[in-house]
């Protein structure tokens, strides 16, 4: 997808427009986009300065102009002291910044990022993610950022487009997608640990609400969105781990969902406790509970959730 936009691959159908200009048949460079590659793809035989200046030299910009733009980019990216080094002499994070610098000097109409953080270790990834967010605010240029990491998507995006097998699953603001996922794929993609899905039977449907139940789930009335399920059919009920609480912890609100199961594994992370629960139909769910929740494997447990926070997906 990104490669199509960049012009590295040719579209077999449809049109690509940038600012209302049809660029479907344009060469990559004529689209005035800049791309940051997953492997950074820095030129190993050039210095940092050479890497950043290459596009401008290719375009035949005057030397003074090249020098000015490279120095400006180096200042923004804090690379001033490294301009005469080669990529091999840089750390992963520094290489990443050079790759971004190479994009910045071209002053493109939009930036394309192809999973730029996947080559960094966990600590550096968070740091660089915040760096990219800061840069984005500073530059204010449109950016298309491809990632498999839901945290990156949630934190960096103004608008997320979730794709699966080349099809748009849902598009919208991050919180919109988190709170109102249009389908199981989007619901499972955003949030960590990911959403639990229960196979349920639809008992009753009326004015936008459906009553569902299964072996471990007491009948509960939940909202339906979009396509209405038919009574008697099977559907999937999604509940986020964070939205589950232990029955003893709260006074039960009327109409709350009730889930009965057996604890299989309990992990105390300090700030919270993550419990794996096996339901009577052998399906597994995960609940993120308070840090004081203590369970032993094999112990029976009843979990509750507020129906408004559950998502019903029609098959």
């Amino acid at each position, binding site marked *: 997808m990104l490669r199509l936009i*960049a012009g590295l691959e040719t579209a077999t159908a449809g049109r690509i427009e940038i600012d209302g200009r049809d660029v479907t048949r344009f060469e990559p460079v004529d689209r005035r986009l*800049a791309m940051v590659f997953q492997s950074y793809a*820095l030129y*190993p035989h050039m210095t940092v300065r050479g890497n950043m200046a*290459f*596009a401008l030299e*290719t375009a035949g910009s005057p030397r003074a102009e090249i020098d000015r733009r490279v120095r400006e980019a180096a200042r923004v990216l804090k690379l001033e002291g490294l301009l005469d080094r080669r990529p091999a002499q840089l750390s992963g994070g520094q290489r990443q910044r050079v790759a971004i610098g*190479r994009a910045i000097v071209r002053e493109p109409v939009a930036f394309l990022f192809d999973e730029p953080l996947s080559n960094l270790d966990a600590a550096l990834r968070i740091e660089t993610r915040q760096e990219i967010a800061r840069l984005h605010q500073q530059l204010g240029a449109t950016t298309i950022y491809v990632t498999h990491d839901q945290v990156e998507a949630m934190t960096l995006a103004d608008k997320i487009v979730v794709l699966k097998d080349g099809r748009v699953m849902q598009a919208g603001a991050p919180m919109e997608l988190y709170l109102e996922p249009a389908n199981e794929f989007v619901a499972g993609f955003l949030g960590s640990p990911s959403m639990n899905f229960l196979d349920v039977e639809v008992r009753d449907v009326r004015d936008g609400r459906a009553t569902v139940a299964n072996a471990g789930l007491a009948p509960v009335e939940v909202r339906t969105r979009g396509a209405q399920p038919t009574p008697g059919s099977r559907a999937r009920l999604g509940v986020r781990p964070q939205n589950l609480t232990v029955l003893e912890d709260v006074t039960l609100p009327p109409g709350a969902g009730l889930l009965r199961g057996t604890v299989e594994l309990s992990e105390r992370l300090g700030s919270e406790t993550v419990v794996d629960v096996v339901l009577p139909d052998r399906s597994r769910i995960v609940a993120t509970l308070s840090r004081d929740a203590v369970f032993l494997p094999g112990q029976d447990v009843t979990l509750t959730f507020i129906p408004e926070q559950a998502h019903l997906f029609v098959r």
Partner: protein
Amino acid sequence: MSEVGFETLRAPQLEGFGNFADVLRDEAFWDSLGFSLRFGTLTAVLEVALGLFLAVFLAPILQRHAWLLAILTLPMMVAPAMMGLMYRLVLHEFVGPVPHYLLAWFGTSPAFLAPGNVFWTVVVIEVLQWTPFTLLLFHLAYGSISGEIREAARMDGAKGWWMFRRVEFPMMLPTFGVALAIRFIDGVRVFDNIYVLTGAGAGGSTMSLPIYIYTSFFRGGNIGAALAASVLFALASFLILALAWRFAQRRPA
């Protein structure tokens, strides 16, 4: 060193550095050294240039049909002496097919093995046999440039000659140096294909240094001089190689 021939092999007589002096005074030695250096340099440059050109030019085809490489590198499998023998037949003034057809089609055929032409003949023969080797090296080097770097360069607007000169060639530079050095070494010490084809050539026109050593050893029976020439050859080689590798190492990675 000592005064020794096959006749006096069992009773050598000490000579001091006389043999070295003789060799250094022998014009044929300098001619053969000159021939070897000229031959080594010229064939190395031609093979590297041709191999690089073919590797880049044929890259799209070779990437799809790897078996073509097998055909292209086949000449390397032929023993150089056989190569010399083959060309001796192919270029033979009276029975060789090449002079025959040139004569039939164009009415004239150069005397390939005449003193004026023979240097170029052996150069072409060597280049034809060993260009596949540099082609193979450059094919691998060219293929190992990561696709993302090429794409990055395309995004930066580079294409064609500019892409090659600024991105691809600099990345193949180490291979370029190694190919040049290996082919130069192989060219300087050339012996068998030339020896089989022309011997020392008319008037020593294809006398490479190894051939000089060989002829003074076996034909001249002058063992002392042959050994002195060998030692000088070894020293010269050491100097050239030491300089070459030093140069190769100084280049930053």
